[in-house]
């Protein structure tokens, strides 16, 4: 999607084109999705700045008397960092503005969520969005805005500023929704979000005024994810092409702005001769930026000063034929100059035009690739290590992408971009939510599928306050609960394939499983992002985690079984032996009961008979 496309269509058109993809297919789903987008934005913002989240969500009917679907006011308030006032119109009034594009785990992904919700509200109710934000702890800015998609920019209806004492952001929209249908899902969502975000305090006030409050369970924030370079297994031809044509591999456009930049970096006030310029540049070479170096190199070959530079246009730099072709506006004719490899500036030009060598490209632009691995790879892929990536043909690019996928000696992806919750918070959350008789959690080591790192963490809980209604699975991905489309999910597949009887679990057990998959890219099965596809690598990790936990549960069950049995024995013998004594005494025609205490003790102690 490019900007040109937006500028030609109306807001509603844009919305309707993307509504299914973004989860706004009907009033029920839209209300639910809007809640998610705002709550997840608030959590993302707090996570990012290591602020313990305090989130208030409220849904109020505009006219409670009316029947569903009807207009609702949806408000989400957080204690996060807020947004600078100048960025608010951008963040909430434009499509594809987001701060989370980098390669790291986050809930939101494409800078689309909040805007879609706002747009949906605007289209269904014609009401503006209200954003209140305080980012400095001193002043609070309130914006009331309508979105103009043609211009991809908001129309600000009102902007006021007042004093404040805490940072945070509140966003409020009016939208058409169906709470009678969406209510249970929204409550589930809030409940499950609290489970996987035990460091947050979340309050939800529903349209009837009922409050659901989930207090903070742990006070430590999990380690935040870092932004990282891509792993070679995780990229395709398109990505490589984008990486190669990145700006710093191009000859910069030499306009007035560029010339000013060069002068500034060289610290020049007056015009100098070409020779003097080169001398000055030599002295500062290590301090000046790459584009400036390139411009200076060009000047060295053309032997011109700034005045001359303004009069020409570089047409072609042909490294293979060692010529630079340029157009002289003054003379209105084309010139060709030799690009001598002997010049100290040759390398600068050549590497700029042709990009880095393959070796450098691999080590600099990817994670987990050192010089040795890169060389091994070149051998494997049958490329010369000093091949300039800018000189690769289309076919070579395809070959390269293919080889990157297949080479097996790359180290597995760096998981530092992942943010699992961690065993302790997960375990505390589970204890607090289910108050189980037994619980265990396990965070697996990071693993990867197709170059995307992922981590599986899982918890199991049994008995206690869990109702004996059979196994219940709570699924999470990147700290988001997955509530829809349970049937085809990989986690459920693994759980259902487990032979629970082997772990001493029978019937409708009071059993809960919490599964959390973190990845820079969750392989969702559908655009609805509700179920995870079964990649063999992910399946294996899930299976290992579940088996480990199930075994722990089995140990508990047999220990519990033995303890229960002993208790049961003791109860039975203390109940029945006195009765037997009473009956026997009368039957035998005796007055005094026999001394049976020894037998009760023995009965309680002996091993179970076969």
């Amino acid at each position, binding site marked *: 999607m490019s900007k040109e496309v937006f500028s030609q269509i109306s807001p509603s058109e844009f919305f309707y084109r993307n509504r299914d993809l973004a989860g706004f297919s009907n009033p029920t789903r839209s209300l639910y999705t809007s809640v998610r987008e705002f709550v997840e934005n608030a959590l993302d913002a707090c996570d990012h700045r290591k602020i313990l989240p305090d989130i208030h969500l409220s849904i109020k009917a505009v006219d409670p008397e009316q029947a569903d679907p009807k207009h609702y006011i949806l408000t989400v308030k957080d204690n996060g960092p807020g947004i600078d006032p100048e960025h608010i119109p951008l963040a909430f009034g434009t499509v594809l503005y987001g701060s989370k594009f980098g390669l790291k785990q986050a809930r939101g992904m494409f800078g689309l969520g909040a805007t879609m919700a706002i747009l949906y509200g605007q289209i269904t109710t014609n009401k503006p969005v209200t954003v209140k934000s305080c980012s400095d702890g001193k002043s609070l800015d309130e914006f009331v805005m309508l979105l103009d998609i043609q211009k991809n920019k908001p129309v600000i209806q009102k902007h006021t500023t007042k004093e404040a004492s805490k940072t945070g952001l509140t966003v409020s929209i009016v939208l058409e929704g169906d709470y009678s249908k969406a209510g249970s899902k929204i409550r589930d969502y809030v409940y499950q979000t609290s489970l996987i975000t035990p460091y947050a305090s979340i309050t939800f006030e529903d349209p009837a005024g009922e409050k659901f409050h989930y207090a903070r369970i742990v006070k430590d924030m999990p380690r935040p994810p870092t932004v990282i370079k891509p792993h070679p297994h995780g990229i395709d031809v398109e990505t490589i092409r984008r990486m190669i044509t990145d700006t710093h591999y191009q000859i910069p456009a030499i306009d007035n702005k560029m010339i000013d930049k060069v002068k500034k970096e060289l610290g020049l006030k007056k015009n100098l001769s070409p020779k003097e310029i080169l001398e000055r540049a030599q002295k500062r070479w290590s301090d000046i930026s790459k584009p400036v170096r390139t411009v200076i190199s060009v000047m060295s070959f053309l032997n011109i000063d700034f005045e001359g530079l303004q009069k020409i246009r570089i047409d072609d730099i042909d490294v293979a034929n060692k010529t630079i072709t340029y157009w002289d506006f003054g003379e209105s004719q084309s010139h060709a100059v030799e690009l001598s490899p002997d010049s100290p500036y040759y390398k600068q030009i050549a590497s700029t035009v042709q990009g880095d060598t393959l070796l450098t490209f691999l080590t600099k632009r990817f994670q987990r690739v050192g010089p040795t691995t890169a060389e091994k790879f070149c051998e494997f892929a049958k490329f010369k290590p000093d091949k300039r990536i800018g000189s690769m043909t289309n076919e070579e690019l395809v070959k390269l992408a293919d080889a990157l996928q297949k080479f097996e000696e790359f180290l597995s992806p760096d998981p530092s971009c992942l943010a699992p919750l961690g065993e302790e918070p997960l375990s505390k959350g589970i204890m607090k939510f289910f108050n189980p008789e037994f619980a265990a959690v396990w965070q697996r080591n990071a693993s990867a599928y197709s170059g995307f790192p992922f981590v599986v963490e899982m918890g199991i809980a049994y008995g206690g306050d869990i109702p004996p209604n059979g196994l219940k699975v709570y699924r999470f991905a990147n700290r988001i609960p997955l509530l829809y489309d349970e049937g085809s999910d990989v986690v459920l597949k693994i759980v259902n394939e487990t032979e629970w009887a082997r772990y001493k679990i029978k019937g409708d057990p009071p059993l809960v499983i919490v599964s959390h998959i973190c990845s820079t890219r969750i392989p969702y099965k559908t655009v609805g992002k509700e179920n995870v596809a079964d990649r063999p690598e992910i399946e294996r990790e899930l299976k290992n985690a579940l088996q480990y936990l199930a075994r722990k549960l089995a140990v508990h069950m047999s220990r519990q079984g033995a303890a229960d049995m002993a208790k049961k*024995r003791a109860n039975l013998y203390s109940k029945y032996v006195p*009765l*037997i004594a009473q*009956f026997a005494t009368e*039957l*035998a*025609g005796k007055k005094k009961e*026999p001394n*049976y205490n020894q037998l009760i003790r023995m*009965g309680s102690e002996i091993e179970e008979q076969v």
Partner: protein
Amino acid sequence: MRLKNKSNAKTAETRKKRLLSMLEQQGLSIYENLDKGKFPQFVIPSRSVSNIVYDKKIRQYILGSASAVRSSRNMSQLRSYTQLAWLAFFVNRLVREGKSSTLRDIYYSSQAFSIDFEDQPESDNIIVDLEAVLTSPREEFHIFPEERSSVFGDLTIEYTVPGYEGKRMNLSDHPDGYLIGPSLSSAELVDTSAELVIAIEKGGLFTRFVEEKVHQKFKAIIVDTAGQAPRSTRNLLRRLNNEMGLPVVILADGDVYGEHIAMVIKSGSANAAHLRELTVPDAKWLGVWATDIEKYKLPTIPMTESDIKRIYDLQKDPRYQEGNWKKQLEVFLKLKRKAELEAFSKYGLTNITDKYLPAKLEESKSF
């Protein structure tokens, strides 16, 4: 007048004494075990199919030598062990106090002693266990089923139940007959002028027989078995045969069930194989035989699937392997039709007593 043969038969009183002493033995054994810190147990003859055998000599099903131990040492048996101990204790009270009880009563009585039976089948089973342990029918424990059959004829009995001890009674005084209940079952049989006992399957026919004065014409005591004879009724038939020396004949419907009613009176049922006081080995099955259906041109109705299946089942029973029993089953199977006792009414209401009964009694002298 035929007087009771006291020297030969066990009287109600001696049977009661024997039972009470067995109960006391059980009690003493449990008591001593408890005192010594040992786990008491009951030895119960096994009633599993593999341990039920047909004894040709005494002509009834009996239990083999296998037995099971119900031990208080085994946690899973502790509850049923206690139930059994309770029942022995409760029966001891019933018999000593001369009170009677029903199967259902037992189920409820247990609750007063924190012995909970899950349902009546569970308590019924424990009663059978005690029968097996003491080799005595539950009627001797003063426990009776709800269903009752009746008796009519010149028989004088003497009650032993509390409040009636020594009181005598003649069973021809009331034309509806007398319920074979606890007090009649525990009564002493004093004397009779009868020379024959006729057991008849159906209440309707029983009434007809009384009306037709069969008891006088044939010098008979008439017993209504009300279908498959309850154990108290079989016990009475046995006593009439044993103690009073009266032959017993049986009239039942002309079908496979009728034939088996006669067989059970004669030689017992598999589920009472643990008991020996319930059979009348010399009893005779008068009819209605399958061959009678043709011979007396009785109106018939077709057999059902289950009738036919029942024939096949009985053909596997060792008692049906020879003689008339075997032959009649085969004829039934061939006819695939059956006739009820009422079928004789086609030839007049008194046809059965005037014609059929004398004919069959005559015939019975030869088998």
